[in-house]
């Protein structure tokens, strides 16, 4: 066991966990932040996506020992960012969600895309969102919502 000081959504959080524990489980089990979802556990589905220093990151495969002092932003905190707010509003406006299980990861990846590429093409969207799977197949509405958020951010 080891003690880590984490920066989560702008707040300092102390946890005492095994260094090999994936960040996902530190968030969900230690900090009780259950907005970030467990999907596959092997970084294949994107449900566990959070931001580490602004980079969309699969928290299920990142041991807490490798997080260091990087800023962690989760679905609970992304609304504080203007792009994050616009994406969440667009998600509601376009009624993207069906079962909703994958959607926190979808939103985190969409925000990372728009932060780097404010006017994404269909190809940009397909490439950047290609690692986020949705068993309800809400892909068309996800694309519409990303374009809508892009328009709102003009």
């Amino acid at each position, binding site marked *: 066991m080891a003690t880590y000081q984490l920066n989560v959504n702008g707040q300092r959080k102390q946890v005492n966990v095994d260094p090999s524990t*994936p960040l996902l489980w530190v968030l969900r089990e230690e900090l009780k932040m259950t907005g970030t979802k467990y999907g596959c556990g*092997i*970084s294949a589905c994107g449900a566990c996506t959070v931001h580490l220093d602004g980079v*969309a990151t699969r928290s299920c495969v990142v*041991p807490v020992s*490798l997080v260091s002092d990087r800023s962690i932003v989760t679905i609970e905190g992304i609304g504080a960012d203007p792009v994050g707010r616009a994406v969440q509003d667009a998600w509601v406006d376009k009624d993207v969600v069906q079962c909703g299980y994958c959607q926190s990861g979808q939103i985190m*990846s969409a925000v990372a*895309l728009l932060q780097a590429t404010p006017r994404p093409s269909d190809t940009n969207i397909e490439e950047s969102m290609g*690692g986020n799977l949705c068993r309800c197949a809400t892909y068309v509405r996800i694309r519409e919502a990303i374009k809508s958020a892009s328009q709102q951010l003009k």
Partner: protein
Amino acid sequence: MLSNSRFFIRTLLVILVSTATWIALTASAAIEVREYKKSDADANRGDGLAAWQKVYSVLISPRCINCHTATNYPQQGDDRHRHFANVIRGPGGKGVPGLNCISCHQSANADSTGVPGGRNWHLAPLSMRWQDANDRPLSSAAVCRAVTDVSKNGGLNGTALIKHHEEEPLVLWAWNPGLRPDGSMRTLPPLSHAEFVAATRTWVEAGTPCPPPNRTAR
């Protein structure tokens, strides 16, 4: 008078024979030196080519060539299959926003989750592709030409190539590739790192010779 003439002729003959012998011996020695130098250079090139083949055997091992693709994606595993999760190259070889290499690959191996890592994890540029578009490794001659072309290899001369093979973190990673998700160790390249660097040094000191292209070279 006659005696003086004989003496003169004998002396002249001795001088002529001596001079001819000296010329013959000198010429012979020169030829020997030239032949020795020629065979020395051949041996040096031969050693260099043999060393290159050792270097090549490492470069086309999965730990190296999986990220030297000619395609829009990296590979993974000893069978060099396409990287899962729709990972693509991206404009700088580091993936795309939302799906970067560092979305999963951290600065070190994550043995508890089986994800390999190293500082600045990324794909080699297309100018340093060591495969064809069908994911088949290029020939020894073709890879050698790519590695020695400073317009393609990031401006690395021979000395810099030795340093690259000796110190570059992602090169070193190949000999410390971490555990697979099932907990087993990833396969290592066919040479030790020390042997790889020594072979690179021998090849560079021989002038980085490359095998001649052949008909099947891609």
